[in-house]
């Protein structure tokens, strides 16, 4: 009887120890390979990283990266469509295994998700029509500057904007750009690609980048605890940086050369 109790107790303690020490999803990589399917976020309102082509199919450099990752893992790709603000929640809520949606590396975000080494870079600029006179941060005073929530510009622009700058937030890049084109804001903070893309689409406004606020690197993110998946992704980034695949994807979609990527 005592023996039985002791066994039972040991079994319970063992179970408890396993349950207590198990990280979020330590076997994520094994599960993905076993299920032959990986779920990756797809943000399709963020040209040239992710956008819908004329057949309404996702395309762009980050979608291409996701396809390449699925191919190299030998599994099927399931794209989980997200908006900018949903990229991190989609990971945390287990809707996606990887966030590959030009997610810039910041210490603030690193409190919530784990980043791999960067596989791309982008610059944040203040852009506006030619008639708006802005040459540096000091000129932002008294101007209405639009930007999209949950982006790098949301974090970087307030740091350099002097008091007296009126910053307003929109939920999507499309709304932010529309606000600039209709004159609801004087200028916007956005990625350099977005500004040059906007300048091409609305030539009558003569939109130009005014000054660069910051350059940032973006990376693939995993839910905290997924060591094995993170390790595989880092290996993938290393291999594809050296064989030129990353630069090829980036330059095809952005039309800009990829800068040297650091690692950590």
């Amino acid at each position, binding site marked *: 009887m005592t023996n039985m109790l002791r066994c039972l107790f040991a079994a319970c303690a063992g179970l408890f120890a396993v349950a207590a020490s198990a*990280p*979020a999803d330590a076997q994520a990589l094994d599960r993905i390979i076993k299920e032959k399917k990986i779920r990756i976020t797809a943000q399709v309102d963020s040209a040239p990283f992710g956008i819908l082509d004329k057949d309404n199919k996702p395309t762009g450099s980050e979608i291409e990266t996701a396809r390449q990752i699925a191919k190299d893992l030998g599994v099927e790709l399931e794209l989980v469509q997200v908006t*900018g*603000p949903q990229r*991190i*929640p989609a990971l*945390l809520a287990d809707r996606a295994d990887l966030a590959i949606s030009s997610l810039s590396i910041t210490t*603030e*975000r690193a*409190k*919530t*998700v784990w980043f791999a080494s960067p596989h791309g870079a982008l610059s944040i600029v203040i852009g506006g029509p030619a008639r708006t006179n802005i040459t540096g941060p000091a000129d932002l005073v008294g101007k209405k500057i*639009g930007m999209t*929530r*949950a982006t790098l510009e*949301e*974090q970087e622009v307030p740091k350099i904007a002097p008091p007296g700058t009126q910053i*307003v*937030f*929109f*939920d*999507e890049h499309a*709304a932010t750009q*529309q*606000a600039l084109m*209709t*004159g*609801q804001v004087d200028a916007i903070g956005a990625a350099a690609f977005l500004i040059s893309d906007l300048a091409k689409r609305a030539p009558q406004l003569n939109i130009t980048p005014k000054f660069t606020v910051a350059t940032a690197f973006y990376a693939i993110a995993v839910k905290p*605890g997924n060591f094995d998946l993170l390790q595989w992704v880092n290996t993938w980034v290393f291999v594809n940086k050296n064989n030129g695949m990353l630069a090829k994807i980036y330059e095809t979609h952005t039309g800009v050369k990829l800068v040297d990527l650091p690692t950590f």
Partner: protein
Amino acid sequence: MTYVFQFGIVFDQFDRMLAGAWLTVQLSIGALLLGLAAATAGAFVLTAGPRWLRAPVTAYVELIRNTPLLIQLYVIFFALPGFGLRLDANAAALAALVINFGAYATEILRAGIQSIPAGQIEAGRALNLTTVQIYRLIVLFPAVKTVFPALASQFVLLMLGSSVVSAISASELTAVSNTLQSTTFRAFEVYIVATLMYLAVAVAFRAAFAAIYWAVFMRERGR
């Protein structure tokens, strides 16, 4: 369940959320008052006004009731500047809510007025009441009493619907929540607090409407 709730981050920014909730309340009450004024005029035109005015009022009501509030908002904020009318985000939000609530309330008031039997109005005339007295005492008063619950429900829907104005950078409760969520990544905590705030505002408004109903319509009975 490995998610660790951290409400501290939300409570640090609680005053910002309260400010957002306050703007939600202001937008709702502003839309209620202006919208009701528009609706009273609209309902009068539809039931007793000149015939040539009825078609445009009907067109307004049907246009607004059969299109999404978000699109109406975009038209006011993004399309009107092209015609030289530029409203800032909060003003555009109020305008859209007034126009939206006005259309629904017009239809509700019209239904209430038409529910008054013609015989009742004839009885008023037989008692030698003036037109104004008839409209005020025999038509409007019982009509509003009949449709009051529908108006109150529509108003709460308006208050909850005001969350979409965050899309044009108005700074009400949903907008503040979205901004907090995107800077702290604490989606569950932020939205749980926002949900409770909306619930509190909705319950408070419903209680206020119940009190108004009692004060205006129930006490009357005792006279």
